[in-house]
């Protein structure tokens, strides 16, 4: 089984942590009325973080094609759905 190197794993973890703080900062920019922009940013951070977890921690990077495609399909579907339902609210 191919493994991600220790340095790589720690790097990904650091990136994930920074993005968590960054998305917190983004989420608290609620003074204006650009809610859609804030939400879009928060969701984008979440999407990238999710994909990093899937690719590096869950090691889908090395997985067979069907699994890589399934995971990406889930990510796209879920985040597209969330954002579409958010924008298309009555």
């Amino acid at each position, binding site marked *: 089984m191919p493994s991600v190197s220790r340095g790589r794993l720690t790097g990904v973890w650091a990136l994930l942590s920074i993005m968590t703080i960054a998305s917190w900062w983004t989420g608290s920019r609620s003074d204006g009325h650009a809610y859609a922009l*804030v939400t879009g940013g928060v969701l984008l951070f979440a999407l990238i973080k999710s994909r990093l977890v899937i690719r590096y921690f869950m090691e889908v990077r090395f997985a067979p094609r069907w699994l890589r495609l399934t995971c990406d399909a889930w990510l796209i579907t879920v985040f597209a759905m969330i954002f579409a339902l*958010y924008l298309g609210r009555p």
Partner: protein
Amino acid sequence: MNAREARPGDLGISASRHAGREAKRELPGDVDVWVFVIGEMVVFAAYFAAYVVDRGRNQELFLQSQQLLSPGLGVVNTLVLLTSSLFVALSVRATRTADARTASQCLALGGACGAAFALIKSFEWYSKLRVGLTISTNAFFMHYYMMTGVHFFHVVLGLVLLTILWREIHHTDAPRAWVIESGACYWHAIDLLWIVIFALLYLMR
């Protein structure tokens, strides 16, 4: 599955498999656990959809209720769970290189972070309940308690799994790599779902 009996049972075989990795991509863990994990992810997608739909119907209420959460605790919990995932991933790596000592240490640290997550989450619920914010307060808190509650159940289940993995490393001479990989896979999925829940409940406007 019948196929599982043919799976490599110990590190030795796993290491020999290592050589042919460029030729054939390998599935981390076994297929069964992936069926489980993907199923969980699809089910959680339904909770997310229900939340966003309800939110769209009453955005003002959700925005105001969101202000009553403690985003600081949410951020800390996210970091704790990410760290837990890192340790578990390092443990899987150590298992493959037959470094049982590092593997079990990392797994224990990962489990400790998972337990810390559960503790912080319990404290967060307690502090909300104490000021009278319950599941029946409004639609936002219904979703808040249900989503975090179901996730909490998965964390507890994941901690049970990590304990089993820890025993596997500690009490068997040749821990089976696919067992460790499968358990780790589930644990990362819990982390992944929390990342989305965190964005939905605490951050989105």
